[in-house]
């Protein structure tokens, strides 16, 4: 900032180092700041609003626990979506892959296979489906939108074939314990989600892979010229998205006690919305994992808060839509 009218006093007081007020002013003007913190501010605002609307019911330990339980699946799923969007891609098939992984788990379970094997199959299914997305997109240079839209139908179709369109009950002691257990108000499944979040955030910010993912999204051609294996990066992020879908499917099965072949459209919409809320640029190259993760919790909390406040169900969709658009405007940065 030039030393002109706005900061004249501050500069006179501290000619050498930029003063605190100037630094705060600079920070507030930085698009990076807003991209990173909008979601946290939104979460706080939503908390206060719903607390005022339902002072006796919203911020109870029971309800907080309910919100965190319902957040786990979308929060896990959004980790993969965030990686994909950072490469300037999008994964429209992640919710369908959840379904595919879930019914694969269910088929294995129904066949009497051990739980560990069922879990493994769910994760591997996600990995395979995600890798296929990535390979087609990177190797054949096909538009990500088209490829993952194709995978949406493909995965859903395979799920229907495997399951014969019928749900499989999954009654398992360890899974039930996993789904119902809590530490204080925090359910085990949320602890798993947070553990995945920490791993993902470390991978993004502390490893070569993370830097190369951001470089690929920032400018694929330049990154390639600088030696980044951009194809491998693209394939990897879709594979990661597939794996998070596989893990999410296990949590989903644990929660509902069944492997269902039904579509999870709202999961897909939420994962994209949470990524936008979390300040990941849809043009790629910028973002973190914590923001989308908090975004996923925020969206779940808003739905819960509206229910608790007695708002008719259909208004929830409207609320989510408005929130996503407003947040997209807030975090938008010139490209």
């Amino acid at each position, binding site marked *: 900032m030039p030393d002109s009218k706005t900061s004249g006093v501050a500069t006179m007081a501290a000619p050498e180092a930029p003063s605190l007020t100037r630094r705060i002013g600079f920070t507030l003007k930085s698009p990076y700041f807003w991209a990173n913190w909008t979601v946290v501010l939104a979460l706080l605002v939503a908390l206060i609003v719903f607390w005022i609307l339902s002072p006796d019911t919203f911020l109870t330990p029971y309800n907080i626990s309910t919100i965190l339980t319902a957040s786990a699946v979308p929060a896990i799923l959004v980790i993969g979506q965030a990686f994909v969007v950072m490469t300037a891609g999008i994964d429209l098939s992640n919710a369908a892959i959840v379904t595919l992984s879930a019914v694969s788990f269910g088929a294995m379970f129904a066949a009497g296979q051990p739980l560990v094997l069922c879990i493994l199959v769910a994760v591997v299914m996600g990995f395979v489906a995600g890798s296929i997305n990535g390979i087609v997109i990177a190797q054949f240079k096909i538009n990500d939108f088209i490829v993952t839209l194709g995978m949406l139908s493909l995965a859903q179709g395979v799920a229907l074939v495997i399951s014969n369109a019928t749900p499989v009950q999954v009654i398992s002691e360890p899974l039930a314990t996993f789904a119902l257990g809590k530490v204080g108000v925090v359910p085990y499944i949320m602890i798993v989600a947070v553990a995945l979040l920490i791993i993902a955030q470390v991978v993004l910010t*502390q490893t*070569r892979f993370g830097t190369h993912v951001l*470089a690929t999204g*920032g*400018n694929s051609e330049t990154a390639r010229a600088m030696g980044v294996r951009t194809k491998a990066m693209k394939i990897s992020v879709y594979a990661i998205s597939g794996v998070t879908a596989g893990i999410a499917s296990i949590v989903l099965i644990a929660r509902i006690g069944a492997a269902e072949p039904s579509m999870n459209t709202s999961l897909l919409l939420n994962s994209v919305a949470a990524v936008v809320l979390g300040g990941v640029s849809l043009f790629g*190259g910028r973002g973190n994992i914590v923001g989308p993760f908090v975004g996923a919790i925020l969206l779940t909390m808003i739905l819960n808060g509206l229910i608790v406040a007695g708002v008719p169900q259909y208004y929830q969709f409207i609320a989510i839509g408005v929130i996503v658009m407003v947040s997209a405007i807030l975090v938008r940065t010139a490209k």
Partner: protein
Amino acid sequence: MTASPDDGAWAVEATDIVKNFGSVQALRGVSITARAGEVTSIIGDNGAGKSTLIKIIAGVDKADSGQIRLFGEPVEFHTPEAARAAGIETVYQTLGLIEDLTIWQNLFLDRELMVGLPPFRFLNKRAMRAKALAMLSELDVHIPSVKARVRGLSGGQRQAVAISRAAGWSSRVVIMDEPTAALGVRETAKVEELIHRLKSRGLAVIVISHNFDQVLRLSEQIWVMRQGSVIEGLRAADTSGEELVALITGASTSSRG
């Protein structure tokens, strides 16, 4: 470094390079040389094949035929990494830096300093920041902070960072595509200073430029290209802007094919 300008060995010697894109003949048997400790300029009109030629030398594109020798050794690069491993660095006009990454991230992209043992190897950010600062100050490049993102830098600062990246490794040849095309007068002067510094460090610098004054100011050797061929090789000391213009536009023909 290994070859001085006087011992007869070329830093880069490209011979009979042919490249076709479909039915378009981009390069029709181009031969150029570049010496260490000199600036070699390649000039020519748009579409003359300059960029294609340097992309082949830099390993981005592959020649259909022809040979490249690096300090006398025949080399064949299939990837930019291979060229870079051999000591050829490139500063592209448009493929400069990743705007959303910081300066130090750009300087160390694909050469990250790591700590820890596989598979738990993490970025050594502190070491990279410190070394980034050293790289920039060694070339007398002034930047507010290596932690700043490239997006906020001026054109001249960006180019300085890109050139520092190219020169900061054990490179022997630095190729630049229009290094000052988007810069103002002062920034251009800064970048030219930087190019002089690379030259005096014994690097072979190959520059594509449209600016004849600059070419005459900066370079020792000039290659003139037209329609996929080199039509003339000149020592900068022996030529003039008028002659260069005449050669490029075809107003003057030359002895070479």
